[in-house]
C-alpha cells in the first residue's frame, strides 16, 4: 500500500468514525429558546441581574419596534411563532 492510498483510507476511516446522528429537533429548538431569552433580555434592556439598562444601537423608533417584538415574543412558547412575529416587523 502506498503512502498516498494509506492516507486516503485513513481519512475515510476518520470521517466514518466521526459520524454522529442528527440531534432531535426538540434539542435544537430548546437551545434556540435559551438564545431567544438572552435576546429578549437585551432588547428589553435587562441585564443578567435583572436591572434595566440602556438599549444600544438602532434608532429610537426601531428600539420601540424591537421592544414590542420582544414583548410579543415573551408570550410565545415556540421558536416557530417567534419567527412568524418577527417577520411582521
Amino acid at each position: 500500500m502506498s503512502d498516498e492510498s494509506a492516507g486516503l483510507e485513513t481519512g475515510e476511516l476518520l470521517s466514518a468514525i466521526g459520524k454522529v446522528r442528527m440531534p432531535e429537533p426538540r434539542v435544537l429548538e430548546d437551545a434556540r429558546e435559551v438564545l431567544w431569552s438572552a435576546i429578549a433580555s437585551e432588547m428589553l434592556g435587562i441585564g443578567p441581574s435583572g436591572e434595566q439598562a440602556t438599549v444600544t444601537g438602532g434608532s429610537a423608533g426601531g428600539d420601540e419596534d424591537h421592544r414590542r417584538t420582544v414583548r410579543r415574543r415573551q408570550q410565545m412558547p415556540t421558536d416557530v411563532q417567534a419567527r412568524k412575529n418577527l417577520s411582521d416587523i
Partner: protein
Amino acid sequence: MEPDGVLIGRSVHGRPDAFVDVARRHEVAIHAYLARRAGRQAADDLLAEVWLRAFAARGGYDTQHADARPWLYGIARNVLREHWRTGGSGEAAALEEERLDPWDGVDARLDSAERAKAVVSAVRELPAAEREVLLLVAWEQLTPAEAARVLGVAQGTARSRLYRARATLRRVLSERDAEDEAGVSA
C-alpha cells in the same frame, strides 16, 4: 444567503434577533462537534451554553470573516473544556466511547472494523494539540487556516501539527499492517 459576518454585525447594531439566523445555520454542525467529543447527551446539554456565550461575545467578532463556524467551534471548545473540568470525562475517553455511536454504519462501509478500531487507537495516542487539528479538519471539514482560528494559533502552527498528526497515523497504521502480515505468514 447573507454571510454570517453580516448577520452578526447586524445583531450588534440594533438587531440582536439577527443572531438567531446564525445559530439556526450552524446548530447541527455545532451539536455534532460537541457530540463527537463529549457524547450526545452532553451535546444536548451544552448547545444552549454555546449560543449564550457566542451571543454575549458577538461584539468582538471580526465581521470580515464570512463564515462564523471557526469562531463558534472555538467557543464550543471552551464550553467543552469547562464541562470536562467540572466533571465530564476527557476528550480521549469521549473519542473511545463515541465511536460506538456510529459503529453500525461504519461496519457496513468498511472491509474491516478492526482497521477502524486501529485508527481510533492511533488517534487517541496522538498529542492533544495534533489530534485537535486533525479532527477539526477530518470531522468538521475545516481548512488548516480555519482550524488555526478555532485554536487561536498561527496558521503555520496548525499546518505543521496536521502534518505531524497525519504522518504519525500513517506510520502507526503501516506498522500495525506489517505486524498483522507477519502474524498471518508466521
